[in-house]
């Protein structure tokens, strides 16, 4: 009922717009310097992690894979018509925002946390959360600790240039304990130090810790601590301020992948479902058979279909890299809102 009435309102609004401005075709001309630059270049310049299982890594044949990489591919597919038209630029934790601000990349999708300072002081846009997590600790089972507070006096390895250090300092101060830290430039050496026993544990966001555990000599010797610190860490793509159309585009590509999961569209069944769309209004809108869902974003109406066909829906991507086919991390917070998770989306109208 709700959906129908909003459709009616939207229809009336579109009609009114058509009456006053002479049709939607002329009404909406999306202007975006970033999108123009990407089209001219024929490639999306996507800033990603230099290599971490789950988010962005190279497979045996040298192709980039991962949750973040999939979003790069989906954006390129939606805008340029091919998921392979992406130039991947590896960025370190230290330099990532400078690289984005300098214009070297169009979008930064690098397991980066959304925060107040990044939005305000760094003046970056935070369009959509593609991974909810929280700072998680992984420790050796042989330590026999049950709670984070028991880690008083222990040494934890981590990568510098992140919010992790601040969170540990805050936690120490709040609980009047001392968890020692050992700061590394790159994860590889931090993994080696943890594996050798130099540190009692390793900390990062939940996804990265799962990735770290998979690189240990004996992953089964390690366990995740039940508590997390530093509150919720929403990770997602960053764009520069001043190009709202582009920020919007990135946001709706992510929502498109969520909408596909809500509608039950997968890589495997997308062509069948398109053929069978019939009069189902939700499917017709998603496939761009009606409405201006492409034009209003600055691309063609077939973008959402292409993204699901070439990259998959959000759940499929999660499963491939973090879920059952990947690092074995339960879907948890990253499930859809109607399955007890935090992934929500605006209505597709």
């Amino acid at each position: 009922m709700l959906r129908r009435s909003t459709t009616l309102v939207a229809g009336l609004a579109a009609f009114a717009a058509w009456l006053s401005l002479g049709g939607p075709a002329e009404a909406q001309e999306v202007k975006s310097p970033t999108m123009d630059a990407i089209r001219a270049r024929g490639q999306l310049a996507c800033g990603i992690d230099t290599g971490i299982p789950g988010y962005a890594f190279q497979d045996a044949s040298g192709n980039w894979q991962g949750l973040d990489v999939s979003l790069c591919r989906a954006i390129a597919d939606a805008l340029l018509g091919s998921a392979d038209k992406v130039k991947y630029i590896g960025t370190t934790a230290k330099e990532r925002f400078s690289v984005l601000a300098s214009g070297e990349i169009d979008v930064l999708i690098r397991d980066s946390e959304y925060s107040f300072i990044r939005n305000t002081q760094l003046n970056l846009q935070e369009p959509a959360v593609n991974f909810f997590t929280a700072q998680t600790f992984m420790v050796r089972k042989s330590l026999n600790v049950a709670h984070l507070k028991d880690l008083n006096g222990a040494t934890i390895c981590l990568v510098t240039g992140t919010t992790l250090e601040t969170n540990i300092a805050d936690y120490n101060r709040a609980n009047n304990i001392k968890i020692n830290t050992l700061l590394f430039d790159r994860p590889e050496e931090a993994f080696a130090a943890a594996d050798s026993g130099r540190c009692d544990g390793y900390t990062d966001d939940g996804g990265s810790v799962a990735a770290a555990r998979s690189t240990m000599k004996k992953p089964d010797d390690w366990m995740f601590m039940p508590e997390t610190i530093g509150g919720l860490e929403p990770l997602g793509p960053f764009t520069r301020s001043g190009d709202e159309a582009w920020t919007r585009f990135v946001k709706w590509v992510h929502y498109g992948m969520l909408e596909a999961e809500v509608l039950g569209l997968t890589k495997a069944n997308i062509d069948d479902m398109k053929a069978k769309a019939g009069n189902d209004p939700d499917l017709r809108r998603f496939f761009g058979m009606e409405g201006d869902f492409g034009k209003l974003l600055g691309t063609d109406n077939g973008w959402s279909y292409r993204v699901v066909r070439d990259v998959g829906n959000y759940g499929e991507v999660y499963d491939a890299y973090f879920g059952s086919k990947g690092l074995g991390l339960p879907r948890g917070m990253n499930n859809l809102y109607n399955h007890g998770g935090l992934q929500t989306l605006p209505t597709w109208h």
Partner: protein
Amino acid sequence: MVRRPSPRARAAQWLLLLAVGAAFWLLAGMAGANMDRRHTSFGFGFLLDGHANFDIPFHLVSWRVGDTYLWALVVCVLNTLLVSAMAIVAATLLGFLVGIMRLSSNWLVRNIALWFIELVRNTPILVQIIFWYVAVLSTLPSPRLSILLPGGALLNVRGLYLPRLIEAPRAVVLWPLALLLLIAMPFLWRATLRGRPVGARALLLAVLAVALFGGAVSGFDWPALHGFNITGGVQLPPELAALWAGLSIYGAAFIAEIVRAAILSVHKGQREAALSLGLRPRHVLSKIIVPQALRVMIPPLTSQYLNIIKSSSLGAAVAYPELFQIFAGTVLQQSAREVEVMILLMAVFLSISLAGSAFMNWYNRHVALVER
């Protein structure tokens, strides 16, 4: 007038200087405009205003979470200086040894030195530092299985733990006094007392110094396993050891070649003359060759020392909390002041290097052959 080389050359130099100045001015203007556009300001006030909300795992002076960034800078500079000084001393000693071995008449000794130099000189220093770190970590046992060293020291994968001296209140007076005695000793050694040289009797001062030092020690803080870690004592972390080993060994290979070149630069007539005077080969080296070679090797040695200081920033790879790691990593992230932090880093490294260079130049003038 214009054809004469000197005014023309001078004009060209001024033009070049002007161009460089203009380029810098343009760059600074562009940076300023860009920062304005990104709504960021420029200033070093954050060093005093901001509170460092992070821990520095290894520090020579006291450090608490919440101190100012400026104090963090002091802590990090001291860490950088510590590892640089340790590496310079070790690299010099090892470099001299290998350089002299390289010129030995013994085939085995000569070739060991050759292989050492070629192997070390031709692999990247970062790889070597990480190699030493992984090597250190993978050979040492866990804290529960610490190796007990003579004197109560403990060695494990977390580092070397030495007993810490607990000072009695009187140490405030006695320890500086002991240091003064030690400094005075070499002067007394050379002095004459009632027309006779003091000589070895000056060693009495050293004995006295040790006694004063020991008299102010009220006890020892022994390292012991407590919970997850060793507590008590002084910890020398493996990160420091790995960085020290990496910098020293890499530097030693280059210093060995400098030493060899310097020794070969001494005319062989000097050696022959010394031998024909009946000096032993050991004395030929220490009294004739090395003093003359020293003058040749000081300038290249200076640049090698500067290289070691600058390479200490590679400690970031093995979690040694030196200047580059803490400032270009944590402080940059927490304060979001990229330009300022980078300028600060360059200025600090430049000051350290220039100070080192100035000292070496002074020493060079001191030992340089005075031409008559």
